[in-house]
């Protein structure tokens, strides 16, 4: 696995901390998932989320604060600064939301905020689309990790544009990449890992499952299988429907 700003993770699973039925279930899900990173939002808690943030800190995993709910570069930058103080980390998962309903990233605000935060010493994990040109710009602006989406946040649709994601992976072979958002099933996570992504980040698929702890375990198994499969160099699919040696084949029939 490629390192994230010098940190090699024990597991390619990053798990969000929102929407669980209770903190006890959240904690159970983290244990079952063996996730190495917990993402946490600050925007809405308004500086008084200490009790909950203590629960996150007690999980004993890397904390990746995010700027969820920020709709402008300025708002995201302010939230990132607050996150650095609260969690004493330079890591920031940068979300600049461009559309209130689909929550898709605003590429222009994202680039602006990446530039400002990287210059300010932050280690930015930008939540982006699979657009290759935007990815290049984000890397130029100082990001050393990319977080392309699988599908819109909370949609559970899986990898919406496999071709685009494959192109992105191939275009920047040295850049650590996390598939972030839109995963609904363990098979989606396995798919992402098989394609050579370094990690996956999910929240709703686990938190809103009927049994979040069991689903967390299922995702842990899936990312493990996917990573192992990628490392094992999978065979290429073959199109048997277009036979290359029809005459030879027929001679013995």
């Amino acid at each position: 696995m490629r390192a994230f700003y010098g940190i090699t993770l024990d597991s390619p699973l990053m798990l969000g901390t929102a929407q669980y039925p209770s903190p006890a279930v959240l904690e159970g899900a983290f244990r079952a998932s063996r996730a190495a990173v917990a993402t946490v939002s600050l925007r809405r808690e308004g500086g008084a989320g200490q009790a909950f943030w203590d629960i996150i800190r007690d999980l004993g995993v890397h904390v990746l604060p995010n700027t969820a709910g920020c709709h402008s570069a300025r708002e995201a930058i302010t939230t990132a600064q607050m996150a650095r103080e609260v969690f004493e980390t330079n890591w920031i998962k940068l979300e600049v939301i461009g559309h209130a309903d689909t929550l898709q990233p605003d590429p222009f605000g994202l680039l602006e905020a990446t530039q400002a935060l990287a210059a300010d010493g932050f280690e930015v994990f930008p939540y982006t689309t699979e657009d290759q040109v935007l990815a290049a710009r984000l890397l130029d602006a100082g990001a050393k990790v990319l977080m392309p989406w699988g599908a819109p946040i909370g949609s559970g649709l899986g990898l919406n544009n496999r071709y685009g994601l494959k192109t992105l992976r191939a275009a920047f072979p040295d850049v650590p990449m996390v598939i972030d958002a839109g995963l609904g099933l363990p098979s989606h996570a396995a798919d992402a890992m098989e394609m050579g992504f370094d990690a996956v980040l999910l929240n709703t698929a686990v938190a809103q499952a009927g049994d979040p702890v069991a689903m967390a375990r299922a995702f842990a198994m899936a990312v493990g299988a996917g990573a192992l499969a990628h490392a094992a160099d999978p065979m290429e699919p073959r199109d048997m429907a277009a036979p290359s040696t029809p005459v030879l084949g027929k001679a013995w029939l």
Partner: protein
Amino acid sequence: MADITIIGAGVAGLCAAYALSKAGLTPRLIDRNGAPGAHGCSWWAGGMLAPFCEGALAEPVIVEHGQTAAAFWGEVTKVMHRGSLVLALQRDKGELACFARRTTGHAPVSDVSALEPDLAAHHSALFFAQEAHLDPRQAIADLTRALAARGVMIEQGEATPDAIDGPVIDARGMAANLPGLRGVRGEMVVLRARDIRLSRPVRLLHPRHPLYIVPRAGGVFMLGATQVESADRRGVTARAVLELLSVAYALDPRFAEAELLETGADLRAAYPDNVPRVSVRGRVLHLNGLFRHGYLMAPALAAQATDYLTTGAKGDLVHEDSCEWRDPRGLGHDRGHRAG
């Protein structure tokens, strides 16, 4: 001479006082703010007695004990036995299927307008016939009166368990500052919409902004409630009002013309599993962690506290010597006291 002192006259303390009095004990009830009012989070509740709906997210123990609430409240106040309705907008139909799988006690509704003529017939819905609701402010006023009739008056005064001799029930909610207890912020609005008629609580499932609407007398509706992991005590945020109102508007556009009567925000005291408990520490019983289930679970909590005090019976909500929060299912690790 009182047999036991109860600190806190919110829904937990009032229910405990009533249950103890009925069991033949003489409780003394003290609250630093006197009679119940806007200072307590019981004031801002929805008043749904909906154990089956809550089961979609809450632990099974809530579904089980919550079913005793309507009978308790029926002794002292008006309880509307009209069931509750769960709807999803066209785009979110999948949410309804999911909710149906994760709850019991419901039946699908083919024509919503037959139950609630003001709602458009095309909504997909589930009907929970056995659920009920009440007006929470009326309910605690009626319970206060019922206590007075039994000779239990609410004294206004500062009190902590340490400063009181004899057995104590600590029902102070957030003010008790117990290990493992945290505040979960909730925000609500109250509207008057005279031209909209609903006879039962309606829950609207939404992937990001779930909403419930509880009808009250005089064309008044309570819209709730946000759930934010924060102990922020500010008034309602603009975002919360926008979210609550826009979902209500999506349900019925006439809510746009409603008169905004009141907004409220307060903290729900919750343990990590969001299940309330009676924590026994020596001569003090802490009744706390009612989360969003104050009116639903306070009767069961009061009953178990009373049983423990009178017979020594240890119900499933009673935890002895629990100065540390402990997860009964062993999912999490034990959690010590945390400052702040």
